[in-house]
C-alpha cells in the first residue's frame, strides 16, 4: 500500500536476488583487494600515525602544545569534535528518519551511512578525551561510588550530559549497525568459498538462518530501535549544543542552538554520505544499486537543509541586532561579519547557504563530479561553522582585557589529520570486509517497481 509509481525503479538492470548478493559481495569474495586499496590504506595509516604522534606529544608534554589559551580554551579540539559528531549524525538520521517516513530508497545507502557514523563518532570522542588534559583520569566522569567523597559528578553540567549522550550514541549506533548486518553476514557465510571466510563470517552472523521466527523478532527489534534512535538523533546534537547554549557567552546563549545544531549536523552528515556513496559508485561500480536517482534524492534533501541553514544564520544576525544587546551586536557585527574572523564567517555562509543551492539545477544533480565537489565544499563549510561558533565567541568576551586570538599549532593540525586518517582507514576496511549495501533490505525492495512480480496475487509490502 506504500508502493508508489513516483520513485520508479530502485535497482537498475533487472537483477535476480542471487545477482544482487553476488555483486554486492564481490569486493569481499575476491581474494585480494585492488592496488589502489593498499595505496589508500597506506596513506590513511600514515596520517593516522602522524595523529598518534601528535597525541603522544599532547599527553607527554601537555595541552600547552596546543594553540588554546585562557580566553579561547576551546580551540581546534572542540571544533573538530563537533564537526565529527555532526558527520556521525547522518548515518543514524538517514536510517531512522527515512525508515519512519518509509522511504524505500534508503536501503541502498543506509549501511554506508551507519558505518560512517560509527567511525566518525569514534574520531569525535578522541577530542574531548585529549582535551581533558589528563586523559588517564577520564573515568572520573563516570558516576560511580568512589573514594573521592563519594563525590558524584555534576548532573547539571552540559559537559556531563555530553559525555552520556556521546557514549550512548556510540554504543547505540554501533549495535544498530551491527544487528542490521547479521543477516548479511549469514549470506556471506553461505556464499563464501574459502573455509576461513566461512568460519569468520559464520561467527559474526551469530547463527542466523533467516527463519520466520528470527525475522519476526528482527522486525520487532528494528521497530523498537528505529523509534527510539530517532529520539536519540535529535537529542544528541541538541545536547552538544547545550555545551554552548547553557553558557552566557555572546553568540552562544541563544535558544536557536539546539535545532540549529541538529540541522547542521544532518547537513554535514548527508554531505559526507554523498561523498562516500559517490566514491563507492566510482570505485566499486555500485551504480546499479546506488542509482542516479538516489544521489538526486540526497541532493534535494540538501537543498532543503541548506535553506534552513541560511535561515538560521540570518536569524542569528537579525536577533543580534533586534535584541539590542551590545555584546551580542558587537560580536556579530564587529567580529563575525566584518572583523577578525570575517573570512571564516563568509566561507561558512557561502559554502553552506549559497553553493548547495546549485542543486536546484538538474544538470548539477546529474553530474557526479560536481555533486562530489559540492559535498566536499559543504563539509568544509560546516567545519568553518564550528570554527565560527567556537572561536569567535570566546575571542571577544565581555572584558576587552580578556580578548584574544587563536590559531592552531602543528600538534592540533596533526591530531585532526590523524582523525581524518582514522576515518579513511575505517571506511577502507568497511569497503573490504563488510557488505557496503544492506543486502537483505535491498532484496526486499528489488521487485519494488513491480510488486507482484507480474504474476499471482499482489503482495502488500510493509
Amino acid at each position, binding site marked *: 500500500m506504500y508502493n508508489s509509481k513516483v520513485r520508479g525503479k530502485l535497482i537498475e538492470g533487472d537483477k535476480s*536476488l*542471487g545477482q544482487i548478493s553476488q555483486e554486492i559481495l564481490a569486493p569481499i569474495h575476491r581474494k585480494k583487494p585492488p592496488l589502489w586499496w593498499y595505496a589508500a590504506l597506506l596513506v590513511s595509516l600514515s596520517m593516522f600515525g602522524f595523529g598518534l604522534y601528535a597525541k603522544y606529544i599532547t599527553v607527554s608534554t601537555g595541552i600547552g602544545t596546543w594553540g588554546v589559551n585562557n580566553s579561547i580554551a576551546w580551540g581546534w579540539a572542540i571544533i573538530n569534535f563537533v564537526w565529527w559528531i555532526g558527520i556521525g549524525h547522518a548515518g543514524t538520521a538517514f536510517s531512522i528518519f527515512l525508515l519512519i517516513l518509509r522511504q524505500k530508497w534508503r536501503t541502498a545507502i543506509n549501511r554506508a551511512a551507519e558505518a560512517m557514523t560509527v567511525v566518525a563518532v569514534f574520531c569525535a570522542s578522541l577530542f574531548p578525551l585529549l582535551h581533558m588534559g589528563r586523559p588517564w583520569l577520564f573515568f572520573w566522569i563516570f*558516576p560511580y561510588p568512589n573514594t573521592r567523597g*563519594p*563525590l*558524584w559528578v*555534576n*548532573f547539571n*553540567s552540559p559537559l*556531563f*550530559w555530553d559525555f*552520556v*549522550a556521546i557514549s*550512548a550514541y556510540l*554504543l*547505540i549506533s554501533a*549495535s*544498530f549497525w551491527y*544487528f542490521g548486518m*547479521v*543477516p548479511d553476514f*549469514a549470506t556471506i*557465510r*553461505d556464499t563464501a568459498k574459502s573455509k576461513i571466510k566461512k568460519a569468520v563470517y*559464520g*561467527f*559474526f*552472523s*551469530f*547463527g*542466523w*538462518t*533467516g*527463519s*520466520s*521466527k528470527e*525475522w*519476526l*523478532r*528482527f*522486525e*520487532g*527489534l528494528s*521497530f*523498537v*530501535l528505529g523509534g*527510539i534512535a530517532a*529520539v536519540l538523533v535529535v*537529542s544528541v546534537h541538541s545536547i552538544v549544543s*547545550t555545551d554552548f547554549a547553557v553558557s552566557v557567552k555572546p553568540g552562544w546563549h541563544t535558544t536557536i542552538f539546539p535545532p540549529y545544531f541538529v540541522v547542521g549536523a544532518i547537513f554535514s552528515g548527508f554531505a559526507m554520505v554523498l561523498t562516500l556513496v559517490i566514491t563507492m559508485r566510482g570505485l566499486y561500480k555500485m551504480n546499479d544499486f546506488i542509482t542516479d536517482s538516489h544521489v538526486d534524492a540526497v541532493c534535494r534533501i540538501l537543498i532543503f537543509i541548506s535553506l534552513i541553514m541560511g535561515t538560521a544564520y540570518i536569524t542569528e544576525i537579525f536577533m543580534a541586532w533586534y535584541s539590542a544587546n551590545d555584546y551580542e551586536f558587537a560580536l556579530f557585527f564587529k567580529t563575525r561579519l566584518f572583523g577578525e574572523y570575517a573570512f571564516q564567517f563568509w566561507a561558512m555562509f557561502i559554502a553552506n547557504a549559497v553553493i548547495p543551492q546549485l542543486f536546484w539545477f538538474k544538470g548539477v544533480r546529474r553530474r557526479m563530479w560536481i555533486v562530489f565537489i559540492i559535498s566536499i565544499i559543504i563539509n568544509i563549510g560546516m567545519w568553518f561553522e564550528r570554527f565560527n561558533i567556537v572561536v569567535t565567541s570566546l575571542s571577544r568576551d565581555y572584558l576587552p582585557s580578556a580578548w584574544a586570538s587563536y590559531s592552531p599549532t602543528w600538534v592540533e593540525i596533526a591530531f585532526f589529520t590523524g582523525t581524518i586518517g582514522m576515518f579513511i582507514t575505517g571506511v577502507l576496511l568497511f569497503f573490504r570486509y563488510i557488505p557496503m549495501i544492506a*543486502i*537483505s533490505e535491498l*532484496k*526486499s525492495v528489488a521487485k519494488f517497481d513491480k510488486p*507482484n*512480480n507480474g504474476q*499471482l*496475487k499482489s*503482495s*502488500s509490502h510493509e
Partner: protein
Amino acid sequence: MSKEYILGVFNDEATLVDAFEKIKAKGIMPVEVFTPYPIHEILEGMGKKTRITHAAFFYGLFAAVGILSFLTYAAVIDWPLHYGGKPFNAFPSFIVVTIVATILSITLLTLFTFSARAKIFPGKKAEIFHERATDDKFVIVLDPESLGADSKAVEEIIREHGEVE
C-alpha cells in the same frame, strides 16, 4: 538433523506466499519458513507473535524511573553540593541524562532480549536447511508426518512454482 523434512524451494516471494497460503488452507502448518528478507504474509501466517515491543516499553519505564532516582539519590541525598546557587534537586536538568540513559538501556536490553528469544548469539552454529535460503531461495520446511493423506496434494502445490527437495 536426524529427522527427514520436506523442503519446498521457491525462487521468489510471490510464489512462496501463494504456496504457503494454499498449504495452510489444507490445514497444514509448515515447521518453518526461511527467506532472504522478511515477508510479512509469512510472518503473520506463521501465527507467532513477538512481544519484544512490550518488553522494550517496560525496560524504558523501569530504566527511566531507576535513572531518575539514582540521580536524585546521588545529587540530593548522598552528597549534595552547591553549583552556582542552584537547588540540589535540579529536576529539569536531570531529565537530559534520564532521557539519553533510558534510550541506551532500552536499546541494550532489547538487543539482549532479541538475542535470547530469537537465539541469535555469538558462537551459535547455524542449523542450515538450505544453503541458499540466505541468498536467493525461499524455503518452506514441512514435517512429512503432519502431511498425512495430503502429501500428494501438497507436493503439487509446491511443484506449481517451486521444487521439492
